[in-house]
């Protein structure tokens, strides 16, 4: 098994990139001449069933991939990555940043025929985003009220200034609207609509057979003219990645989103003319691989040791030989895809330098013992993807070269979160940091101190830096975009200097889609978007 992964060497990676380029370019050229075809059933690979299909209640790609076709957000991102109205038509902020007004689209109806109004927006914002939605509850912490002067205006009132560009970049993920008349009675968490969503989107929920499939059909009354093209979308539950690749080849699936296949299958299908394999359309779902340090270990509390560990690992070699084209060298917590905030690579970096790593460890006072060892660490890899597993093994071998023995302790998802973020029973942990288009959404929580134990993907390292905390807090309420960008550049420089977490690899999810699909991957969060313009060629 391990050897088959190793086969993706540089050469395969290069071939794959050529194939990807060819595949992506040809259909694009063809677009101009083709007239969209109405009809057809689009079959989607659905890897892990969720407890929830309503994106106003759970922010995750596993929900957007289905709920994002049925329900719609206020705003989404356009092809260039700029906010574009969906259920909202325009917006403005008051000079003090405490009042943000949305003008809503008129003539939109829910799938059950009732009109969409500002009451729905107010209800969703106050009862779902603020109280239940993950990341939404943090984003809307200072939201005090939503006024509805008329059915097509929603006025968000904040206790502290809310930067408009933060809200607009967060809302594509955290701004889905649910119908008030469906949810106003009873417990929101137990509402039957959570698994049979009612929305305003281009597709209407039809049927959910647990463990098998979900079906949504064309919404004949969709507000965009002549949309959607597809008759039906079917999400097929396939938990085995190799089986999903086989079903793509057998023509039973059209699309496997969010790196749903094994790395070797993605590389293989990339050379097949029947498929397009690309990271395009996933720029809004960037992530970085991490190494998280537990400062409760005295060795790791020493900054020299953390830097030595970073210098000891040959990241470019790992990327080239294991991840191929699907990853690139990371430079810190804000990935290069985030054009609005990326500070460049001129922040402190830790290139591979074994001699320097050894010298730093000696300097820190952890000399090699008789057997050549300095000390031993427990590394907990997250079970989210095969790249993490490979990366953990690579860390283990690299650190063993500089005299640090690493024991890898594997857990499933629940076990990993509990041990790392609740019990702090780790020395090193590695997983993904998900970047959600603005650092204030899900990035700075990795660094801000004072996070209660049990909050996953937050600063649980036993590390605190008041100067960094201050920058994080200031940036979250800074309404001048230029000043905000400067604050985040300062934040990255300091974070990379202190190195409580190291984020040396940048990845974007990989899409595998049938070459017959048209108008796909045309926005930065396409897999999550509504697919109103997607169509299938004969």
């Amino acid at each position, binding site marked *: 098994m391990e050897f088959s992964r190793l086969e993706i060497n540089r050469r395969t990676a290069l071939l794959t990139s050529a194939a990807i380029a060819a595949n992506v370019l040809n259909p694009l050229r063809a677009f101009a001449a083709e007239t969209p075809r109405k009809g057809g059933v689009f079959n989607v690979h659905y890897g892990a069933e969720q407890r929830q299909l309503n994106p106003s209640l*759970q*922010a995750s790609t596993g929900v957007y991939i289905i709920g994002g076709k049925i329900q719609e957000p206020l705003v989404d991102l356009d092809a260039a990555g700029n906010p574009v109205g969906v259920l909202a038509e325009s917006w403005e902020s008051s000079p003090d940043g405490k009042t943000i007004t949305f003008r809503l689209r008129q003539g939109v109806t829910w799938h059950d025929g009732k009109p969409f109004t500002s009451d729905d927006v107010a209800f969703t914002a106050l009862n779902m985003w603020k109280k239940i939605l993950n990341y939404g*509850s943090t984003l809307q912490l200072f939201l005090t009220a939503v006024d509805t002067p008329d059915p097509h205006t929603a006025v968000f009132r904040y206790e502290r200034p809310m930067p408009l560009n933060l809200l607009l970049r967060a809302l594509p993920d955290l701004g889905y609207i649910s119908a008030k008349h469906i949810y106003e009675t009873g417990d929101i968490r137990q509402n039957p609509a959570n698994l049979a969503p009612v929305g305003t989107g281009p597709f209407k929920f039809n049927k959910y057979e647990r463990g098998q499939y979900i079906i949504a059909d064309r919404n004949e009354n969709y507000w965009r003219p002549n949309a959607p093209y597809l008759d039906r979308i079917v999400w097929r539950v396939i938990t*085995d990645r*190799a089986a999903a690749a086989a079903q793509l080849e057998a023509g039973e699936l059209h699309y496997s989103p969010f790196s749903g296949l094994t790395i070797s299958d993605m590389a293989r299908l990339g050379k097949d003319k029947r498929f397009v394999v690309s990271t395009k359309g996933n720029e809004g779902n960037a992530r970085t691989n991490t190494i998280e340090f537990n400062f409760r270990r005295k060795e790791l509390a020493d900054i020299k040791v953390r830097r030595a560990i970073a210098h000891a690992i040959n990241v470019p070699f790992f990327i080239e030989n294991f991840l191929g084209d699907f990853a690139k060298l990371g430079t810190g917590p804000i990935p290069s895809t985030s054009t609005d905030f990326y500070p460049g690579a001129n922040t402190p970096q830790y290139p591979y330098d074994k001699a320097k790593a050894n010298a730093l460890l000696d300097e820190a006072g952890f000399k090699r013992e008789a057997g050549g060892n300095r000390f031993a660490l427990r590394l907990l890899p997250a079970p989210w993807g095969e790249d993490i597993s490979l990366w953990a093994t690579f860390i283990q071998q690299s650190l063993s070269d500089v005299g640090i023995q690493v024991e890898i302790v594997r857990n499933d998802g629940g076990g990993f979160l*509990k041990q790392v973020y609740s019990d702090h029973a780790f020395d090193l942990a590695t997983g993904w940091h998900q970047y959600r288009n603005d650092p204030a959404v899900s990035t700075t929580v990795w660094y801000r101190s004072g996070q209660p134990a049990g*909050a996953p993907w937050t600063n649980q390292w036993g590390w605190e830096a008041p100067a960094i905390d201050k920058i994080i807090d200031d940036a979250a309420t800074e309404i001048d975009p230029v000043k905000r960008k400067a604050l985040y550049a300062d934040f990255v420089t300091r974070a990379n200097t202190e190195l409580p977490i190291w984020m040396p690899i940048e990845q974007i999810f990989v899409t595998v889609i049938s070459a017959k699909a048209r108008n796909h991957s045309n926005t930065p969060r396409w897999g999550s978007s509504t697919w109103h313009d997607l169509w299938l060629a004969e």
Partner: protein
Amino acid sequence: MRILSLAGRRLAASIPTLFLILIGVFLLLQFAPGDTVDAMMAQMGGGDAATARTLRKFYGLDLSVPVQLGNYLWRLVRLDLGYSAIYGKPVTTVILERLPPTILLMTASLSFAFFAGLVLGVIAARGVNKWPDTLISTVGLIFYATPSFWFGLMAIMVFSIYLQWLPAGGFEDIGATQSGLGRTLDIARHLVLPTLTLGLIFLAIYLRIMRASMLEVLNLDFVRTARAKGLDETRVVIRHVLRNALLPMVTLIGLQAGTMLGGSVVVESVFSLPGLGRLAYESVVQRDLNTLLGIVFVSALLVIAVNFLVDLLYARLDPRISAEG
């Protein structure tokens, strides 16, 4: 009447075992780090500590372990399997939905393995150490040694991708509104590959047991008597040898009915079938205690039932074993 009292006694003897198993599984899952809320957070990709507290309360996880266990057993006594955390439905409903595909797959592959194993075992024993025996034994060994996920994927490659004869996965055609015979045929088409994949491994065991048991019985005195009586070889084999040689096979069915339920996780995943094995796996990963215990409960009932049938079969096959025990 005798059968009924035997059934009653059997059931009475199984109840304490059942409770011990359930308590064991309950405690075992407490040792696994993380609970269903952690698993849910993992799925959501984030959440704050306050949300986690509300959710723990919602799922009744804020209570102490003995109280949770006590509540569970008390509900069980009233035949209430509780509420599934991942499915948001009563566990009984969730399991009943998954039971038909599992039982279909299990009976189909067990019957396939049993009958094919029986026939091949007899052929091998008749031609012991000659080429049919060598061929059958070698092929059996290969089947036994091959992992089932590989078999499944290869079968999909050949029959679904290249030949395009059979579907690559799923339980039935989606959206097809067939009923009656059409639907039955559709489901049967979907089950061919999984049945073969799951059956082949068991086939190897059955054929080896059958062969060994045939060889043993063939050397017994009463077989010599039957031959001396002038019976032809076919009658000797069918009337005298086969019936006696079947006993170990029947024992094996009873034992494997349980294995098959758990062993189908892999096959269900490869062929995307909505069965109990996958449900159990998912409940472990999601730490959905109620669902998992419910599955253990139902599986245990199934195994008890199958073993009871096996006991009855024993008595039919060998009158020396009476149902009185």
